[in-house]
């Protein structure tokens, strides 16, 4: 499990214990990862977040076009595993959860405990801290070296 901010850990651990979910990805509505469990490569996490946020955004637009309120959750039941994609409001804006689960759990269980999880998250969200600068003033030389190495130059 990896979390961006420590306070997410408690609710996420409880959700994992209770739901027996295989993968969990928590992201902002623009696709930035807030927490994840079960992925092995950080780049895969980012792809999953981009796609999950994209799906939520597009179904939201679709609901808007059809004159209905946005969809609360989307469920895909595959043969090997199911996926739940669900948006929820937090004091930091709308977040999205992507949960993959196998036959050891069920969509009912995942939905049930996901609701509890989002309630806990919404209640526990602290105000955003104002942080100072994080990079050194002359970060460019490190950036350039990284980019050159990346492009084999």
């Amino acid at each position, binding site marked *: 499990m*990896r979390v961006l901010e420590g306070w997410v850990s408690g609710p996420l651990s409880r959700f994992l214990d209770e739901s027996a979910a295989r993968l969990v990805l928590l992201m902002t509505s623009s696709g930035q990862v807030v927490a994840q469990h079960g992925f092995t*490569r*950080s*780049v895969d996490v980012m792809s999953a977040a981009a*796609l999950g946020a994209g799906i939520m955004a597009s179904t939201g637009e679709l609901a808007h076009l059809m004159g209905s309120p946005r969809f609360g959750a989307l469920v895909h039941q595959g043969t090997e595993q199911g996926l739940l994609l669900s948006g929820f409001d937090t004091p930091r804006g709308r977040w999205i959860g992507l949960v993959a689960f196998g036959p050891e759990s069920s969509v009912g269980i995942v939905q049930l405990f996901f609701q509890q999880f989002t309630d806990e998250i919404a209640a526990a969200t602290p105000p955003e801290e104002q942080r100072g600068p994080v990079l050194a003033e002359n970060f460019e030389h*490190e950036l350039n070296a990284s980019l050159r190495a990346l492009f*084999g130059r």
Partner: protein
Amino acid sequence: MSLVNFTAREITCKIVYYGPGRSGKTTNLQYVFGRVPETRRGRMVSLATHGDRTLFFDFLPIELGSISGFTTRFQLYTVPGQSYYNATRKLVLQGADGVVFVADSQARRFDDNIESLQNLQENLLEQGVDVRQMPIVFQYNKQDLPRDLVLARADLDEALNFRGVESFAADALHGSGVFETLKGISELVLRKLAVGGPAA
């Protein structure tokens, strides 16, 4: 704004390649994908139509390495250029930390570039973002085409680059200018997080 994880010391930034249809946004990402070692990038996700036009977006995550002790990652997105995909463009633009405007240098595409740039401003404004506050660089692509078909960088700067930000001549298909463009936008985006930079 860029996501900073102070516990794991990680920075994640979202960079969107914007511009008119067929200007070479996807080509930029494909070139980056081809050059960056597999260990430092994810799969390139392309939601495209049968004719290889971007339908929703392309997405490529890359890991730059450590900068000031922070593992720094970029999420590169493209938007679909065709005008009728505006709803999708708005969605992809949400939460962008920087924009690369990929213009088509061909003289016959001049109006398409202007229209796309105006569309970018409108879409940002709708999200409460002033285009003047958004880190942006211009890339004038297809500069490899015969001189009589394309506009020079100075002409394109005059037409599009009213803020006088960095601009790059490019031939994304063969890679020329792609690296410089990415470097340019990276510096602008990360400058917001640096000592002495504008407040993030």
